[in-house]
């Protein structure tokens, strides 16, 4: 497809651990269109972060191993690039924001120095140019007196402010893609609202595409245009955001939406819980990874791992059952 900015096909990543090989990502394919915001949803261990780290060449090897797949970005395969080629793209054309702003900033360098580094490295700015651009960037992400704060260290900023600094770094080279891995999870709700608001503003100002990884369906509902739901290292459902919330088709997505209490909900209904635990993935699943927890499980689910099939326009689901009609597809 020509209109895709990023086209990931058949990505597989494993990790060697003392207890065996963990199959973290098992054949993930998705595309990212220009300027769109793609939400990636799933619980801890579902492979959502590893997918993005694999694309960015940030999986440490060993223990990690990106075994198969391709990730086309402007006709180049990110997975086949050398370290230096990858380094030229990371931070320049693809920006990143991580969950914990304290551990992803260098505590012994000033914020100014860390902001100037990509500008000088990728854009070839002089020290002076980089300094004034860094101050601009801080103002842009809502840090007042940007110029005066360049000489501050990360610990002199609060959690929300640090995340703003991270965002300033990520957008400093005007990337086409911003990958944000749980960027608001460590923050309080009022600060989270500030950050999502900021991202929305920057998105419309800069027109970049965003991949937003989160476990919070509420954040996705407000921010994403399209959503991918991951489970056990697979994409199990993919749809436009309104379609996904209105007509979730995978039992896991249905369970996930049902298990959420809502702040605008008046009656105290019992929450629908998904019984059981997420899979350990010591073997590459030959059956549906959700089968052990699924209410609608059938014989076929144990024999064959379902593949994504289109059930409605731009809505794909990996499930053998048509849950709504209570019968096999």
């Amino acid at each position, binding site marked *: 497809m020509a209109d895709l900015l990023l086209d990931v096909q058949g990505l597989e990543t494993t990790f060697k651990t003392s207890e065996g090989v963990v199959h973290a990502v098992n054949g993930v394919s998705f595309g990212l269109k220009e300027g769109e915001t793609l939400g990636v949803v799933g619980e801890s261990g579902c492979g959502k972060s590893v997918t993005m780290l694999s694309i960015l060449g940030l999986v440490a090897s060993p223990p990690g191993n990106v075994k198969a797949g391709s990730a086309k970005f402007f006709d180049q395969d990110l997975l086949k690039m050398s370290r230096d080629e990858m380094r030229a793209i990371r931070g320049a054309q693809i920006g990143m924001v991580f969950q914990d702003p304290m551990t992803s900033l260098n505590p012994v360098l000033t914020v100014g120095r860390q902001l100037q580094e990509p500008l000088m490295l990728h854009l070839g700015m002089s020290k002076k140019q980089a300094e004034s651009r860094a101050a601009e960037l801080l103002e842009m992400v809502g840090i007042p007196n940007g110029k005066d704060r360049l000489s501050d260290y990360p610990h002199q900023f609060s959690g929300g402010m640090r995340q703003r600094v991270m965002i300033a770094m990520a957008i400093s080279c005007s990337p086409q893609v911003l990958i944000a891995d749980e960027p608001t999870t460590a923050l*309080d709700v009022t600060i989270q609202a500030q950050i999502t608001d900021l991202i929305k503003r920057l998105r419309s100002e800069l027109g970049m595409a965003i991949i937003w990884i989160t476990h919070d369906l509420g954040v996705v509902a407000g921010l994403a245009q399209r959503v991918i739901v991951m489970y056990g290292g697979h994409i199990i459902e993919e749809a436009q*955001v309104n379609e996904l919330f209105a007509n979730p088709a995978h039992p896991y997505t249905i369970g996930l939406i049902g298990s959420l209490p809502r702040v605008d909900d008046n009656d105290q209904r019992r929450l629908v819980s998904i019984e059981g635990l*997420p899979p350990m993935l010591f073997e590459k699943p030959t059956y549906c990874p959700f089968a052990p927890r699924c209410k609608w499980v059938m014989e076929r689910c144990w024999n064959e791992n379902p593949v994504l099939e289109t059930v409605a326009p731009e809505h794909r689901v990996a499930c053998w059952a048509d849950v709504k009609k209570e019968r096999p597809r």
Partner: protein
Amino acid sequence: MTDNDVLLRVDNLVKYFPIMRGLLQKQVGAVRAVDGISFDVKRGETLGLVGESGCGKSTAGRTILQLYRATSGNVNFDGTDLTTLKGEDLRKMRRKMQMIFQDPYASLNPRMTVGEIIREPLLVHNVATESEANERVKELLELVRLNPAFSSRYPHEFSGGQRQRVGIARALALQPSFIVCDEPISALDVSIQAQVVNLLEELQDKFNLTYLFIAHDLSMVRHISDRVAVMYLGVVVELTTRNELYANPLHPYSQALLSAVPVPDPVIESTRKRTILVGDVPSPANPPSGCRFRTRCPIAEAVCAESRPEFREIKPGHFVACFFAERFLQ
């Protein structure tokens, strides 16, 4: 409301942590973690205590249970003032009030089996012999839906949700009437959160338990609580019934907090208007004068810096600490 309905009455509770400095460890200040909070918890109800990190909600929970000794103020539990109790008397009272902790990884001793962990309170309080205790462990494990055969396993063999069930079983071992749940689900995955919350609700119905449910997740608090208290920087700014708070929040902080919570529904999210608060929470070591919230408040006036707004009952059962709460009355 007669006094008999009230299980716990917290009256002007204060907890300061001293800040020491220098060779002689002179006290140079204090972190005012909890700075004069008052509320009642009725028998059998769940009172939600919400607020952002650092607002003092966990300290409040711990001070109520006398895990921290209060700087001043009273905690009246079932007719006894806990703040005056010491030693053996306090230890006896602890049987009636228990705690479920946030981190299921840190709150279970990794060197003890699950059976030993759940049995320990029974033996410490001398309420059961060894064999009775073992029977009781089995009952408790079944109660929290864990296989009783698991009692000889160690905590690391369990998942986060299962560990939290062990923590719940331990808290229930002495048949308490009151449990402080300190963020019991925030470390768990979404699909597991619902399992644990459903279990807590079930146990409450079964044993007529009273919960103080501390959390930062407003949607979950709305789901589980009968009444909700909102804390900001060491003080309770609003307290009322669940539906009243979510329908008519009267304190500007509660309003902002509620509007900041994302709703898992893209149709609603696209039309919602947000009140975005500016800035961060000030340090509790040096809180603003007057109203604690005034530095971030969209409607603050000069009077807010001068005196602290009284925590008053603005309409039956609805308490708020704001000079201008009347403006939002419908």
